[in-house]
């Protein structure tokens, strides 16, 4: 079961995790990204590519579900204006065993950072600027390619 939601509404972690749990899973892993206010950020705005975003997230969820035999994948990403402490993104995975859920979850958030069309603009008081992409995010996404079992062909993955 794949659930993709891109919305300006606050993310309800309890509802989302309960839905992921109810699939006969033995383990559910989640990652929640939260707006940090520790370097003076007063507001965060998230722009995205309507249509393109949902497509990218769906393909990402499908890839993770195949690679780790996941019972459920949920990706919820908030867009629009947010404040420090607000949730930006929730990724949750369910699997029979914990390693698949944990690895699938880590894969999804790493890949989302580099392959889903979202753009952040931070405001510090009256000063707003677009956030630069981080090289460390590209490296984190790339390590999953290196970890892919060599015996698997893309079609059989």
């Amino acid at each position, binding site marked *: 079961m794949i659930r993709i939601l891109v919305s300006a509404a606050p993310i309800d972690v309890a509802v989302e995790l309960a839905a992921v749990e109810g699939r006969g899973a033995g383990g559910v892993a989640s990652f929640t*990204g939260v707006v940090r206010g520790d370097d003076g950020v007063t507001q965060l705005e*998230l*722009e*995205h*590519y309507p*249509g*393109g975003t949902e*497509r*990218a997230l769906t393909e990402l969820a499908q890839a993770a579900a195949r690679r780790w035999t996941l019972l459920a994948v949920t990706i919820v*990403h908030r867009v629009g204006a947010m404040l420090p402490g607000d949730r*930006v*993104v929730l990724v949750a995975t369910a699997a029979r065993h914990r390693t698949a859920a944990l690895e699938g979850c880590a894969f999804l*958030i790493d890949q*989302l*950072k*580099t*392959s*889903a*069309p*979202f*753009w*952040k*603009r931070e405001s510090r008081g009256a000063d707003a600027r*677009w*956030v*630069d*992409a*981080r090289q460390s*995010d590209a490296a984190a996404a790339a390590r999953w390619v290196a970890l892919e079992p060599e015996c698997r062909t893309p079609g059989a993955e």
Partner: protein
Amino acid sequence: MALQILYFAWVREAIGTGQEQLAVPPEVATVAALISWLSCRSEGHASAFADPAKLRAAVDQRFVPLDASITGAREVALFPPVTGG
């Protein structure tokens, strides 16, 4: 044939609009060629596209390298590297 061209983030802001419907000549066959061609349209376009190394693209909603073909495409999106999550 008219191509739907989308702009996001600071590319959108520099150009002053989030989308344009343009009749692109058939000899403009790749994303990179499209970027060059668009640069001539306004100072905003020229500014947004001054450094193609800072640009990323999607053709019909799929991420592609800048040398990808746009032949037959309905929609091309041009934007900075993504920063979601």
